[in-house]
């Protein structure tokens, strides 16, 4: 009767930790020690499993692919003969797409973050945008591919893709066609949509770390909101913004699904020369090689993965260096 009373009571008010420990552990002190030890064992086993998985992953890919790594692998185009094939086209494609993605996503993402953190009042409109960004972060990347295909590659079907409207000469890198088709520009902009929520959220977090007293000091001297943001808040938060931006770019480099939906050609023997050039990216080339059953392609896929992981590692190292440099420069 008494315990029943205690239980109904506990559901109506928050229990204190002491009550919980006392109520739920009838076993002896020694028994509880054994449970504790056993749980620690489970913890270590599971954590070791996670580490082991990473080790197996890296080792198995290295074993499959390291024999194929050579200068020739980096400088050759894809080929039906596995011994001649290389990643030149997808490597350059990834670089082009990533640069376009960065140029588009960083200003827009940081701009959105500045608007939300520095310029907007706490209003319904603001929380609507915030909720919207949280939801966009959960949208599968393949759905962004559909958006990119319809909006960028086909311009919603408004322009005729057989006879596109052109601007400039094909020799210049900024040669443009409408609709974009499945060129590097469409690829980069599609990836921009994928990573935009990440850039916005990490930039917001960066801006929030800047103490309010700095803003107040600047505003008190008569600086406008934008002068305060540009001269005070942004310089103070730029290392964190850059780190978040680079992490977002490494996400973009690893994405294959949105690019795949754009309908890029599977077999490419050229590097991009302008914004409309056909391209493929490293993850997509790895996917294509992995799907082939014939011998030799499996090793090519593994070697491609090593190159991809090396690119990602370089980007992450860059993020660390930039953070250190800028932090020191800002004192």
């Amino acid at each position, binding site marked *: 009767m008494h315990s029943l009373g205690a239980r109904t009571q506990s559901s109506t008010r928050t229990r204190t930790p*002491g009550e919980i*420990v006392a109520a739920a552990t009838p076993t002896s002190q020694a028994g509880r020690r054994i449970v504790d030890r056993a749980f620690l064992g489970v913890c270590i086993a599971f954590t070791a499993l996670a580490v082991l998985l990473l080790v197996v992953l890296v080792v*198995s890919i290295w074993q499959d692919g390291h024999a194929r790594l050579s200068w020739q692998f980096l400088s050759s185009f894809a080929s039906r003969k596995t011994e001649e094939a290389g990643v030149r086209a997808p490597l350059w494609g990834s670089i082009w797409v990533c640069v376009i993605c960065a140029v588009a996503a960083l200003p827009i993402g940081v701009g959105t973050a500045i608007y939300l953190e520095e310029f907007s009042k706490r209003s319904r409109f603001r929380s609507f945008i915030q909720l919207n960004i949280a*939801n966009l972060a959960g949208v599968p990347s393949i*759905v962004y591919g559909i*958006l990119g295909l319809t*909006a960028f590659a086909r311009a919603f079907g408004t322009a005729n893709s057989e006879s596109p409207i052109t601007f400039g000469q094909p020799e210049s890198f900024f040669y443009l066609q409408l609709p974009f088709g499945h060129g590097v520009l469409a690829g980069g902009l599609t990836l921009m949509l994928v990573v935009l929520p990440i850039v916005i959220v990490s930039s917001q977090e960066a801006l929030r770390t800047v103490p309010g007293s700095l803003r107040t000091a600047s505003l008190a001297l008569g600086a406008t909101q934008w002068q305060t943001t540009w*001269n005070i808040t942004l310089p103070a938060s730029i290392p964190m913004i850059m780190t978040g931006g680079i992490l977002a770019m490494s996400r973009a480099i690893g994405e294959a699904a949105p690019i795949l939906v754009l309908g890029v050609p599977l077999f490419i023997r050229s590097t991009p020369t302008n914004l409309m050039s056909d391209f493929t990216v490293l993850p997509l080339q790895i996917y294509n090689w992995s799907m082939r059953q014939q011998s030799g392609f499996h090793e090519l896929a593994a070697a491609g993965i090593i190159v991809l992981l090396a690119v990602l590692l370089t980007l992450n190292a860059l993020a660390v260096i930039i953070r250190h440099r800028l932090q020191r420069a800002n004192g």
Partner: protein
Amino acid sequence: MSNVAEISTATSRAAAANNRGTARSRAARIGTERVIRGSLLACALLSIATTFTILAILLVQSASFFAMPQVSAWEFFTGTTWAPLLGEEKHFGIWPLIAGTLLVTSIAAAFALPVGLVVAIYLSEYAPSRVRSILKPILEVLAGIPTVVYGFFALAVITPFLHDHVSESFGTFNALGAGLAVGIMILPIVASLSEDSLRAVPRSLRDAAFAMGGTRFDVSTKVVVPAALSGIVASWLLAITRAIGETMIVALAAGGLASMTLNPADEVQTMTAYMVQIFTGDAPAYGIEYKSSFAVATILFVITLSLTVVGNLFLRAFREEYE
């Protein structure tokens, strides 16, 4: 002390900026301010435009799919045969694709949710700080690996292992291999987000429980985990959303046969894998198979969006605030 120094540099910078600014009139400054404010607002509105454009595209294309004479909405939502490409008579019943997605997601969740939570508890409650400083970067590395790499891993390592050591019935493509790879992919999400919410539980709660004679296990499972439950459930929902939307792993390792099966050794097709099949194939751009992929994308979008919304609501409604 350093704060004072910061403020003084800030004020001097602001003063310098204002000196530059005084040459211009006040009206010009207000004008610039308006233009900048407008362009920042435009950036923010782009994210809303993105959502509505996705919705519009999916709805318009799905509507034109359902308007086709060969398609019935009733069959689509209740049918258990998905045969859009083969045979004389095409069937568009979504359930085999949903079943395939759920099978792969359940396998991934069964692996990653408990393991991820235990790793999080270990990192937050048990691990010495030196061990933690090694393990956190390892989790970050795992989280940064592109999904196509996990797909290759499933095809090259997990499935051969299952075939050789578990059962001969595992073929080249199977749900278990793909599901485990998806599980490895979402493991760091569960572990690091759960760990964040475990660490946010104030120390005083732990101290009180220790003072009552609780062991570390008692404190972790009866005080810290319940206090962080909203964050843990949110991390689970986020991980499940990722698993449902994951594309490259299932396209590589799960196969391309849409079937209603619960056998993890079978080949299954998920919603995302079907979309990959259509967009990489030679399906004509305005044909019925092509349009069906938009209807599938709509279902996928609705499922993932609802999970995200539920996760956010959960985080807000059940957050326990400690000050």
